[in-house]
């Protein structure tokens, strides 16, 4: 993989038509994490998302591409934003959508994840979107499921569709349409963040100057990762100094702080966190004029991000939500067209 997001030749699919028999450069049966997704493939997702944005701009924002296909959304964790985003995306592609709010308590009733996946498959699921509180759970699902699995967020591990919509949103707003060499700061509870981990893969692949910033307790282990690089040569930076991180930043992404972090002794108090790491307009002034402000949501306004910053002119938070639908349409579309298992589906072998 090259450290560049310079344009590459990409065959963008005709998204009004079903994905079968279209020759596109997407070979993954599943989307579990971005570590195995190459730069040209990420570029393909971006271009396909452009096509989906165009669909969304139509008076009737719907294409028949996945008509008759079953997309099952299996969420083991409470979520509104991501679940609805997948649902809207699937419906915009004319897929049949099944929503299942599962709970980890079903484990205590004896129904394992493997049992549940077999059941939804028997009920007709072809594309399975799964969210789970335990890191790695989608890989277990992918071992069992004969269709395609999309990771909708697993534990602390990965949230690949979020990282791709983040990248898409940055590129749509940065001058030149590229994050290469742009200073991107991910700020906050990196340790527990699947969003941060997936963004490390995509943003380093895109050649961004990526910085992770937060209290040292919430960066545990990341210095070692940064020193090694996300893959050979793909470095990023880690710092507890918010001033150092924000200075001349092009993009600042704040992460949600959970109250449990105080109980487990990682932080003294929310008040202290807000005072030292909250993204306020005064802090944002350290960044480049017009720096982009992002947040994967849901926000604790007044804690990790000040309300005026979240609602300010530099904020792309609402746009992230809109782009989320387009990116997920693109991914469902590309995955539905995958015939052959490949590296991304190594979990199935």
């Amino acid at each position, binding site marked *: 993989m090259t450290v560049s997001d310079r344009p590459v030749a990409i065959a963008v699919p005709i998204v009004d038509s079903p994905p079968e028999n279209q020759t596109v450069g997407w070979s993954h049966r599943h989307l579990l994490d971005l570590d195995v997704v190459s730069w040209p493939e990420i570029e393909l997702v971006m271009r396909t998302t452009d096509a989906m944005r165009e669909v969304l701009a139509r008076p009737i924002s719907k294409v028949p591409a996945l008509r008759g296909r079953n997309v099952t959304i299996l969420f083991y964790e409470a979520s509104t934003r991501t679940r609805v985003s997948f649902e809207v995306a699937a419906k915009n592609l004319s897929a049949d959508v099944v929503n299942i709010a599962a709970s980890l308590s079903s484990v205590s009733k004896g129904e394992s994840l493997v049992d549940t996946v077999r059941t939804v498959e028997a009920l007709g699921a072809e594309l399975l979107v799964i969210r789970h509180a335990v890191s790695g759970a989608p890989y277990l699902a992918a071992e069992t499921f004969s269709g395609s699995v999309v990771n909708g967020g697993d534990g602390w591990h990965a949230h690949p569709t979020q990282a791709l919509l983040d990248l898409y949103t940055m590129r749509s707003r940065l001058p030149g349409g590229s994050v290469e060499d742009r200073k991107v700061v991910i700020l906050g509870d990196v340790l527990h963040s699947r969003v941060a981990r997936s963004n490390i893969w995509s943003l380093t692949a895109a050649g961004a100057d990526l910085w992770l910033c937060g209290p040292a307790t919430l960066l545990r*282990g990341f210095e070692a990762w940064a020193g090694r690089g996300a893959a050979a040569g793909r470095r990023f930076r880690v710092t507890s100094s918010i001033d150092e991180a924000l200075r001349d930043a092009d993009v600042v992404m704040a992460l949600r702080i959970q109250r449990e972090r105080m109980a487990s002794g990682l932080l003294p108090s929310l008040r202290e966190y807000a005072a030292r790491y909250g993204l306020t307009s005064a802090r944002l002034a350290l960044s480049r004029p017009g720096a982009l402000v992002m947040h994967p949501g849901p926000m604790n306004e007044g804690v990790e991000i000040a309300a005026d910053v979240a609602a300010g002119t530099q904020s792309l938070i609402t746009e992230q939500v809109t782009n989320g639908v387009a990116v997920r349409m693109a991914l469902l579309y590309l995955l539905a067209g995958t015939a052959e298992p490949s590296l991304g589906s190594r979990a199935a072998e």
Partner: protein
Amino acid sequence: MTDLDISRAWLVDPVAGREGPGDIVVRDGILESVAWLDGGDAEGIDDRGVVVAPGFIDLHAHFREPGNEDAETIASGLAAAAHGGFTTVCLMPNTTPALDDPAVLAQVAAAAAASDSPVRALAYGAVTAGRRGETLAALGELADAGVVGFSDDGSCVGSAELVRNALAYAGALGLPLVDHAEDATQTVGAVANDGFVATVLGLRGWPAAAEEAAVARDLAILAEVVRDVPGARLHLTHVSTASSLDLVRRAKAAGLPVTCDVTPHHLALTDEWVAGSRRWAWEASGDPWSDGAITAAPYASALRVNPPLRSAGDAAACREALLDGTADAVATDHAPHTAVDKEVEFGLAANGISGIETALGVLLAAVDAGLIPLARAIESLTTGPAAVLGRRFVDRPVGLVEGEPADLVVFDRSESWTVSADALVSKGKNSPLSGRQLSGRVLATIAGGRVAHEAALAVSR
């Protein structure tokens, strides 16, 4: 009775400190002759073919009976042990109920007798009542009933005060405290080695410091207790980090009565396997995402084990500790589990590897790689653990001694076998080595003069 003739094999006798070409003859279960060959007779025989060694001794196995017979029974565990070349096993007391009372030991002994396996089943008693870490178990009664030591394995003895008391009380009984070193305050919810792989995979890290803190604590207490109770002994099981082993090395040099074992998986596998690497520890680069090592799905729950698989450096330290004698033995920590407990999300899976049948093959992989001499590998499975147990429990020399009941294993380094659910005799199919070829297929295991396991070899009884 058992008769066995093996000619032109490679004999390893760790008691005599001798290895070389030879023939053995077993008649009526007695090792009638051991003939070492030399000169022209020895020509063409090397240590790459059929090897005859004393039967292996496992200091650490879980057979799950009583309480979880779906995962393993005494009978299935003993059969698995024999398949792995073991003729003596020491069972951990974390059964249900815990072996904290002579009645449970009697149950285990009765199951072993009923199995009719010639493999010898020894057992540890719990350190604390119910393994709850609160009060001492019936140590004296358990000692009288024949336990080989005391352990709350699966958990560390959390209270330092109880470690002190158990070392003293058990020491006066002439038995060791066998500790699973883990400072539990550092490992709440931890599922993988705290390090690069866990960070990338989003798994809660189990730091090396949690083991080292417990090891240091136990050694400091031992140093004090041994002044009052000269018989006090500490055995640290499944030691997994370089710094823990350094602490043991220094304690031994200072003359403290401490011994330790390492497991086959900690010396040959690394946490990179959790990311999907399938390279031996000595082939690992430290960054499976960059070096092309990832060939399997990540998060395979067969790799969930406690202590967790560590870094390549820690694995190298385990091998180094075997070479310099810091580690006295290799113990399997055979931990069979049912599919229900294992075929679940990595973070929800039970800890443990079904390893008693793969221990020899894994050690031989390190031998094949030139990292451990064959003789030392054999010692670590025979005289090493025998010395930890002491003459009270191993009253015969663990060598190839003429006139004694045969207690030996015959394996062929030129023959390999593929690890699979079908190939494993244990009820626990939870092996991360499934699908892998291991060399050193066990051809025969003779325990106490009787055949415990035989493969394609003519053994007449």
